């Protein structure tokens, strides 16, 4: 009963509008994808041939939690390989594959005086990062941990918000609520002229790899497998590349 109630709640909360005008022949595919792919996947899903795609974007960790609670999803595409790997081990996701890479950058408003990570520890600098459980947050902590201890401490001291997903960080940046934030280069591209990306030094850059898989309880397993394949080649791969994602070697 508890499961049923939770499921009901999540379905009520998570589902958007039902589009009943879709032709019956196309399978309806529900894709849970990391926030950082919002622009790229929204663009390509409109012309996606294999299925009528319904997208649900949130932090990869929130989406994984929904799948654990039994929310009916066909495809799970995350901003790391760890969460899909965990779901696979729990028997909830079928053989996830790596499909794209991304780059963590320091994002600042276009008018900002900040030009490097070295300035982040200065007094009064306000920073937003991802919360610990969302991939962008754990990549960021990985970067910070590679800095000298006193610099890491100074930066952590300047963090004003731990956002649940990259969109939250970008919003705080574009509104001028913070001076800097760690996001993906694709987020800065998507934000247009308002934000500037500062590349991280080579030795700080974490390996950011996205992975996706077919959810075990998928209602459309075949169409879902095609969609996952399309993230690597054809399908939505071009849209991802245009948005600034890298191809997996």
């Amino acid at each position: 009963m508890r499961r049923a109630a939770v499921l009901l709640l999540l379905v009520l909360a998570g589902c958007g509008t039902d589009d009943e005008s879709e032709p019956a022949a196309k399978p309806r595919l529900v894709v849970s994808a990391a926030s950082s792919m919002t622009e790229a996947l929204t663009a390509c899903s409109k012309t996606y041939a294999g299925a009528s795609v319904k997208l649900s974007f949130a932090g990869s960790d929130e989406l994984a939690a929904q799948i654990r609670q039994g929310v009916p999803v066909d495809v799970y595409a995350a901003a790391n390989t760890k969460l899909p790997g965990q779901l696979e081990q729990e028997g909830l996701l079928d053989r996830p594959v790596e499909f794209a890479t991304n780059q963590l950058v320091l994002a600042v408003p276009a008018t900002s005086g900040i030009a490097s990570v070295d300035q982040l520890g200065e007094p009064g600098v306000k920073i937003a990062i991802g919360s610990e459980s969302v991939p962008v947050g754990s990549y960021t902590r990985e970067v910070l941990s590679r800095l000298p201890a006193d610099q890491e401490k100074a930066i952590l001291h300047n963090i004003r918000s731990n956002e649940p997903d990259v969109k939250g960080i970008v919003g705080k940046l574009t509104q001028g609520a913070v001076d800097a934030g760690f996001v993906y280069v694709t987020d800065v591209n998507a934000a247009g002229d308002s934000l500037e990306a500062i590349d991280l030094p080579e030795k700080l850059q974490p390996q950011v790899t996205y992975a996706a898989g077919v959810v075990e309880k998928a209602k459309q397993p075949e169409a879902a497998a095609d969609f996952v394949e399309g993230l690597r080649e054809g399908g939505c791969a071009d849209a991802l590349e245009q948005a600034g994602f890298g191809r997996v070697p």
Partner: protein
Amino acid sequence: MTVRSAWFPALLAAALAATIAFLTLPVVAIFVDSSPRDLIDSLGEPGALDALWLSLRTTAAAMAVILLVGTPAAYLLATRSFRGRAVLITLIELPLVLPPAVAGIALLAAVGPSGIAGGSLEALGIELSLTTAGVVVALTFVASPFYVRQGIAAFAAVDPTLRDASRTLGASEARGFARVMIPAAMPGLAAGGALALGRALGEFGATLMFAGSFQGVTQTVPLAIYDRFATDFDAALALSAVLVAVAAGILLAAKLVAGSEALGRAAR
């Protein structure tokens, strides 16, 4: 009773049963799998206690503002008639129907760093976004209409002869307001206060957008629940149960206050 007249009461009963089931099932589900032991364990975690303490502090601050400013404002709107009164009331009620995300955007656009009043606030050295004060602003914005709206109705419902009597006995309006009108309107005010308190305690969207999420500074219980949802569903459930218990306690207390005031008046 004939068969023909029985269908309507049956329909009413069915509607009530559906309402109760729909509204209580999710709340019951929170408690089904979180034992008292889980609740205590979840509170043992420092982040949870920080969130609870922050929620109580910010909600109390928001309620203080709402009661101090909202009560006289509601009194004025209830006891005077002037041009544009209906428009004012509608403006006050507007945040009631705003989605929380809109409230968050609106606050950023108004008093955020690049908002229309952001520059003036900055000149005064006031910083709201990403601060505890910002949480209080967000809570006050979304919760106050619940109180003011109910307050207007409560003051308007007070028998005018009661107010006039205190006037003819020589009491100033301020004295009449404090000694006659507020006690007379108390059940309605308490109900409005309870609604506003519940809304403030549960505020999520506007807080996250305007004030962000930082443990001990802006991460209230609803934000802490969302944070835990991804990593530890049981902890999220337990923290939810705590919030339900606190909210239920507040609602019950408000009902008792309203009830005893009403009884006290009747006995007088």
